[in-house]
């Protein structure tokens, strides 16, 4: 379908919106000042000024852009703006994000003298806050956690404004904001404050793969009561709660309600959800990659435990080397650099869709042992494609809807955007009896009872 249409002009942003975006830009520049300034006191001032400008600018802009319009689906010009349609702005954003991750992962380690590479000034600007929360100075991971949490919270508020017509989206967004702030940021910090292991109660094996590695387990067990509980929690969540919760609610209970990776995708990544490739070719890559990753981490875990139990040095060496490489390739490059760095190009769920072993595990459960499905409402689908467009997991939702079939896909994270965006009320996330779960609507085909009776 070729088109000779002229590129339409974008509706002009109001002066107030431009002002708010300028404040955001000012915040980013101030962050550069914090990076460049040699004086520690000024660094800190620049840093907090930057956060203040970024935060207030973002909040003001979100309200101006979404809050002032009547509540409802607000997708205008999504595919016309460079920032959300792989234009120049998107590529620059992607490069900056990717670069940040490269610097963070491989050039920001403590050199032994409390110097953290190019990000050093930003890390130290957080020393005060880190001491208050964790009773220790900041490091590069604390800086990362702070940025990450701020991104989830600020862009979360934007999502709350944007999707305020849907209670499902409001509650779900509040949930990911809560779990990121409380369980993935404050609680691990507090645990450190009380000299306890830094533990993330919302990350489980096989995503947080080392939580069931013998090394982590033994070291936690040595920490006494709380450590024992953490081992118990990790094992119970991975092996017991995950199948049970997924049986009742689908994988969404984790992927789009609790998980921090999902939380970032649903908030900071929301402007990019339409970029997920819906083609069959992309789906083929998905299954080719994600299940081998799951197999890989299961095998590595087993190897490490066999070594632990038998003391076999050969297996131990293999498991240890494999775990190290897994950590580099999958844990760092895939989930971080590609997973977040490529947000503006490939959408926000690249990691969740192609790489996350937890998603693979949850997906298998969802597909085969769950009450969850997205129901299609009779024959009401008009094949408009809005559902597929907003699917961050790259599911071509309309293929099912236009056939009157329920959508039961391993990859579906249950964000509910297809249902929210559907202009005809066709899609609904439901938990119901497994019997007849794949049953399509009788209303859509002429060879249904109605016509041939």
């Amino acid at each position, binding site marked *: 379908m070729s088109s000779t249409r002229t590129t339409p002009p974008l509706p002009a942003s109001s002066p107030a919106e431009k002002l708010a975006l300028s404040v955001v830009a000012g915040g980013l520049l101030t962050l550069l000042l914090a990076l460049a300034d040699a004086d520690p006191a000024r660094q800190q001032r620049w840093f907090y000024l930057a956060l203040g400008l970024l935060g207030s600018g973002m909040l003001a802009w979100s309200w101006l852009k979404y809050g002032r319009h009547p509540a409802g689906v607000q997708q205008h*010009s999504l595919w016309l703006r460079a920032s959300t349609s792989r234009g120049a702005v998107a590529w620059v954003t992607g490069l900056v994000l990717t670069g940040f991750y490269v610097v963070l992962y491989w050039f920001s380690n403590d050199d032994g003298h409390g110097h953290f590479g190019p990000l050093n000034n930003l890390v130290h600007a957080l020393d005060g806050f880190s001491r208050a929360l964790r009773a220790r100075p900041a490091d590069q991971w604390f800086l990362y956690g702070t940025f990450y949490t701020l991104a989830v919270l600020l862009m979360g508020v934007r999502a709350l404004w944007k999707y305020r017509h849907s209670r499902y989206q409001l509650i779900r967004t509040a949930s990911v904001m809560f779990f990121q702030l409380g369980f993935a940021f404050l609680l691990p910090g507090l645990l450190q404050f009380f000299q306890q292991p830094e533990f993330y109660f919302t990350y489980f094996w096989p995503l947080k793969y080392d939580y069931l590695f013998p090394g982590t387990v033994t070291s936690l067990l040595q920490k006494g009561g709380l450590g024992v509980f953490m081992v118990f929690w990790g094992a119970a969540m991975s092996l017991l709660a995950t199948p049970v919760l997924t049986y009742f609610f689908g994988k969404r209970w984790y992927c789009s309600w609790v998980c921090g990776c999902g939380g970032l995708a649903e908030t900071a990544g929301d402007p990019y959800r339409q970029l997920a490739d819906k083609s069959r070719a992309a789906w083929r890559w998905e299954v080719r990659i994600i299940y081998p990753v799951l197999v890989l981490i299961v095998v590595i875990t087993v190897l490490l435990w066999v070594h632990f139990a038998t003391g076999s040095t050969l297996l131990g060496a293999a498991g240890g080397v494999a775990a190290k490489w897994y950590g580099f390739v999958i844990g760092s490059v895939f989930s971080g650099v590609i997973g977040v760095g490529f947000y503006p190009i490939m959408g926000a769920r690249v990691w969740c869709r192609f790489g996350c072993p937890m998603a693979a595990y949850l997906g298998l459960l969802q597909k085969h042992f769950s009450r969850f499905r997205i129901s299609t409402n009779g024959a009401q689908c008009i094949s408009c494609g809005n559902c597929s467009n907003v699917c961050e997991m790259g599911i071509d939702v309309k293929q099912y809807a236009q056939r009157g079939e329920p959508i039961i896909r391993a990859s579906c994270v249950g964000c509910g955007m297809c249902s929210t965006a559907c202009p*005809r009320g066709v899609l609904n996330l439901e938990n119901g009896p497994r019997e007849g779960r794949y049953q399509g609507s009788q209303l859509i085909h002429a060879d249904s009872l109605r016509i041939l009776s």
Partner: protein
Amino acid sequence: MHLVIIGNGITGVSCALAVRRLRPGARITLVSAESAHHYSRTALMYVYMGHMRLSDIKPYEDWFWDENRLGLVYATATALNTAEQLVVLNNGTTLRYDALLLATGSESKLGGWPGQHLAGVQGLYGLPDLEAMARDTHGISRGVVVGGGLIGVELAEMLHSRGIEPVVLVREARYWASVLPPEEAHLVDRQFQENRVPVRYHTELREVLGDAQGRVRAVLTTAGEEIACQWVGLAIGVTPNLSLARMGGIDTDRGILVDELLRTSAAQVYAAGDCAQHRQPAAGEVPIEQLWYTGRLQGETVAHTICGQPTRYRRGIWFNSAKFFNLEYQTYGRAPAGPVAGMDHFYWEHPSGRAALRVYFQAAPPHAVAGFNALGLRLRQDVCQQWIRNHTPVAAVMAELGAANFDPEFFPQHEQALVAAFNRQFPQQPVVLKRRKGLRALFG
């Protein structure tokens, strides 16, 4: 068997897919002058508004057609010889058919107004219209939309999305008066107001005024008002596209005349979808149906007849849906816009003006339910249709209303308010709510 289908809209494609299923060996050729691949006509507005790209509104990926051995020809059919069963295309080829389906769709109706041929005046039906609209609304400040129906509100929403002020002219006293009762129309009007779209009711177009370059510069209304504008959208309906049928000497009236099996007056030539006119429509049904859903159904039905399983077209229980800016609309069964003898109705509206439900039922006992209008609420189609088909008494419907609730999780549930309102309006048929939705059904 070689089946040639003229038109790759939902009707033609539905027929092609059904024939492929029924006759795996059949040769199927789809001819379209509009686009190389099937696309969703109903989604054109979303492309204009930037929600999607053209490639996103194709219901099937491009590999689909080859893999299912559905031949696509991007050309115009210029002649039809029904005696020799030949279709001539403008690319120099001639197709011989064993069965021919005319699924040529519609054209926008023009009202015969002075000035309607000026540059910047158009309807919205297909891709060329979308391109013209994109071109002619580029950078303008105001457009006038003529027509108070579904395309009218779509055009208004499209212009509004680009910061262009739409002014809507509606002939009747309210929006979509032929279909919506006053209360429902009022809720749509609230959407216009909320989005600051001026609507002139009781107002028709009298003339389109042009400038020296032959472009529209204003419209004159029947109220005598001159509205300056740079674009005019005519949304007063569509009319069957008959050109090829007429060339082939096939009987036509307003549409291509077909019998119950969707056969035209020529042997082995069928017509379905927007372009077909039923010689004997079923009681209470219109002869020409111009909906996505009826196109799909007619396409699938005619496929059975073409494959040697003569199947009469029966539309079944009516349903339709739409969205007016942010207000969703679903309707099932008989839902007349005004009073009908022997039919009663119950109406409830949420104080917010963003949700309403009307239930139609027979005035005589046992008050069998006849239809539904839902605004801002999602109803389960199969449940509503089952109630209508089974002539379920309205009291039983109200008591079980939760079974039809298709709203997403955590959405406010209105069943209790609905039943309370019903009991106030019809105290002689007291109802106790038996069924709610989701978790509350368990604990409520």
